[in-house]
């Protein structure tokens, strides 16, 4: 049952790696059998009223919702399983992640069909494990959020670094030109 948390972490890792090149990012976490999260823009801002489409990994549409004021959403899938969330800002920005609510790896291999487990297990151990999962997920949620936000921030240092690059390139080009035309010798 701790696997559910691991799954969320794996999903988060998958989100962090290829989502690098996207301007709109999507953060989602599984707590119990609910998927909750939010979209955000690198550089600041949350997409309000953006379309979020929930599909199965095979692409079958499960649900369609809109993000709230802070770009947030919450969704309880009909059966536990793997889902793909795609957020579209409506102007060509979009982000998508895979997430799993039943402990199976969220990422690629869409071959096995997982049996629909009952949401509330009957035996006590499983229920305790589920409660612990939920508590741990709740506790580390701010950390994950902070990490993701830090990952996608336009940092002042980077801006200044970019300016340095531009000055350096201009200098390089000028030096190259001066060598070619012989002004430097």
């Amino acid at each position, binding site marked *: 049952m701790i696997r559910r948390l691991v799954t969320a972490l794996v999903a988060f890792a998958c989100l962090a790696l290829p989502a690098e090149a996207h301007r709109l990012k999507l953060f989602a976490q599984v707590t119990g059998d609910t998927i909750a999260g939010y979209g955000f823009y*690198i*550089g600041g801002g949350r997409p309000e*009223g*953006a379309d979020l489409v929930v599909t199965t990994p095979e692409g079958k549409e499960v649900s369609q919702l809109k993000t709230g004021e802070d770009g947030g959403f919450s969704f309880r899938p009909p059966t536990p399983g793997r889902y793909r969330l795609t957020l579209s800002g*409506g102007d*060509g920005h979009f982000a998508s992640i895979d997430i799993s609510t039943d402990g199976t790896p969220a990422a690629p291999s869409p071959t096995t069909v997982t049996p629909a487990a009952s949401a509330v297990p009957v035996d006590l151990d499983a229920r305790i494990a589920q409660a612990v999962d939920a508590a741990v997920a709740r506790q580390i949620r701010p950390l994950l959020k902070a990490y993701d936000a830090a990952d996608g921030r336009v940092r002042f240092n980077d801006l200044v670094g*970019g300016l340095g690059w531009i000055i350096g390139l*201009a200098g390089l080009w000028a030096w190259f030109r001066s060598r070619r035309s012989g002004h430097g010798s």
Partner: protein
Amino acid sequence: MAHIPDGVLSLPVLAAGTLAGAGGLWLGVRQLGDRDIPRTALLAAVFFIASSLAFPLGPTSIHLLLGGLIGLMLGWKAFPAILVGLLLQALLFGFGGLTVLGVDLANMALPGVLLAMAVRPLISAAHPLRSAILTGLAAALAVLITAGLVGMEIALSEPAFAPAVGVMAAAYLPLSIMEALVTAFVTLYLLKVKPEMIGASAMIGANP
């Protein structure tokens, strides 16, 4: 906005856009003389900063593009300037993909360069107001054409992600007004101070 992620565009769109970007870049680098280097670098820096700072607006977020202004001040040399800005944004912030760099470059530079070319003969220090209005209109139109190009490319490649016209209009119309104002004021200022920076005749009183 206008920074398209990797893996969205279909191959024909990608090829056509990259060719357009490379063509403009070739023209620009060919014109890049020794004396143009500082100005080109300066505008590359302006573009890099202005288009890195995005402001949230409803379901999307907007940032300045300044394609019209850069096209006006640099002509085809806008291509190398914007390329450097885009490359740094892709590497430092992950704005837009590296494989679509040529497409993004064409989207952002081409409308500004062509429109600036069209209005440049009508700009003169003798008619600052008319010149400013013209450059403002060119800048606004450049933004809208960039938006149209981005929308068209995504719609052609991935119809599921086709931008909603309403959202596009809501995001790009205020942006085009902002850019028009910025460009018009910069034009007014440059016509007074350094008209040759925007390719206008330096002689006050000369007819266009």
